[in-house]
């Protein structure tokens, strides 16, 4: 069944229509890629799902429940975790405390929260950093910290926003491994990504938008061949990312 469903979702910022009547269904257990050129509205869709701002029209459904009007923290509590494109660690807390803060959503008491946090730090290969302040981490580790923090809220769906951006090739492979590992643990993944190598190799299905509108959806091979997708990326000078 569809675990996340967008029904005709639109978002206006003043006169600008950032997202225009977008619909898609994310099936339970899959990795669903969301692609599009810069400024096409991908991150906005994430912000609409997790209700960082309200939708102008349409509905967001999570596992059969309408979450369109719920608040951000309620959506998280239902089981939708997310990361941010520009990482937002809780800077003056240690790496471990960052994850403990989010583990408290499910865990009762300090000891349980700490156990959970340590488990997810280990899962994301962050254990060596656990006592460090989050602001001192290198970028690749900060991205993993974001994921660990989101995972500690025990999400059913994880929204990953450009987790691979800014990583070197070695770190990129690690990131791909991590994403696959998360899926194996039973979490559905909705991922926004610019780096084609990543998105094409891990996604089960891909949804492509441009100027806030859907232009293609399907398996990675088909989407990559879609003339509208090629036009969107190459026709607007976005070829560098492909």
């Amino acid at each position, binding site marked *: 069944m569809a675990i996340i469903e967008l029904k005709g979702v639109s978002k206006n910022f003043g006169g600008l229509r950032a997202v225009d009547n977008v619909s898609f269904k994310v099936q339970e257990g899959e990795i669903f890629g969301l692609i599009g050129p810069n400024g096409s509205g991908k991150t906005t869709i994430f912000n609409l799902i997790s209700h960082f701002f309200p939708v102008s029209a349409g509905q967001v459904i999570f596992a059969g429940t309408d979450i369109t009007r719920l608040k951000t923290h309620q959506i*998280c509590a239902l089981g939708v*975790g997310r990361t941010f494109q520009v990482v937002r660690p*809780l800077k003056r807390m240690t790496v471990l405390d960052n994850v403990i803060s989010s583990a408290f959503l499910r865990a009762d008491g300090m000891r349980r929260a700490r156990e959970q946090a340590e488990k997810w730090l280990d899962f994301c290969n962050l254990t060596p950093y656990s006592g460090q302040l989050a602001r001192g981490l290198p970028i690749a580790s900060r991205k993993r910290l974001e994921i660990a923090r989101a995972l500690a809220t025990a999400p059913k769906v994880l929204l990953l926003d450009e987790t691979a951006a800014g990583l070197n090739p070695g770190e990129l492979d690690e990131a791909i491994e991590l994403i696959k590992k998360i899926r194996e643990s039973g979490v559905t993944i909705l991922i926004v990504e610019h780096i084609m190598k990543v998105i094409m190799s891990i996604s089960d299905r891909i949804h492509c938008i441009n100027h806030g509108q859907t232009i293609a959806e399907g398996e990675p091979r088909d989407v990559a061949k879609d003339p509208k997708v090629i036009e969107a990326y190459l026709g607007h000078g976005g070829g560098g990312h492909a």
Partner: protein
Amino acid sequence: MKSNRVALAALLGLIALPLVVREPYFQHLMIMVLLWVTIGTGWNLLAGYTGQVSFGAAAFFGVGAYTAGLLSFHLGVSAWWGLALGGVVAVLVGFPFGWIAFPLRGAYFALGSLALGEVMRQLATIWESFTQGMMGVLIMPTFLSKLPYYYIALALAAGSVLVVRLVLGSRLGYYFISIREDQDAAMSIGINTTKYKMISLSLHAFLTGTAGALYMNYMGFIDPHVVFSLHDISIMAILVGIVGGVGTVYGPAVGAFIMVALQEVFRSAGFGALEALSKAIGGGFMAGLTKYVSQAHVLAFGILVVVVIMVLPNGLVGDWRKVSRLFKRAS
């Protein structure tokens, strides 16, 4: 833990102190210090740990004080009931305020809290039939000795520090600090930021209101300008927090000692020195100077604000490394 032992030793020392030092003037100063430990600690929980800087401690302090005073004045019950109720009423005042101000980000909370203090002061001034207006509220103190007040203030101060320690080791503390660090990130990990900011505000209001109620009982007299003072209460609370160390457990306690001591030095020693000087030199200028000098401690207070923020933005405890390095360099 080392800090635990230091804190325990300090507490034992404070329990024994009034038995050793029997000077009433000194005991009075210690009571004020302990009141400020309570207020500063409550402020720190909201500002230092939750990141919501309150410029409105006076609103809660005054409401607590007036609760105690008016209970006695209107209903004839003991003002000590205020000690139980002052904090609660302060929370009730804080609630609608937080409900309005917290959904707005940015400077609104700081400004709103400043305005809240002003609104309360104006109310207490204008609503004469209820508050006696500028006449203030006078009650008969229960005890002649300062000792009972001292120990109640000590219990309150120790209790407030304990509350902070308990909060920090729990979900509440983690949520507060998460909100301080990044509200959006906090929401994204399932924290109901408005709710937890409200809890933090309520703790601030409760501790400050209770301190206000104790102040009423101890001093026996309040008026709107004393208990709702922007400078003497709200700004003082911020200074106590900042001097000691924002976002540290014992910072406000240290800050309270320093600030009350400094205030007193400016108020009394500055006074005496100038007076002596004018007598020694004579002449119209010095005589004129001493005429205005009753205000000089406010000037000194203002300068202190400026200097503290410039030199120790994170306070003595927060900037401890910086401070100790200074001393090492000097020796």
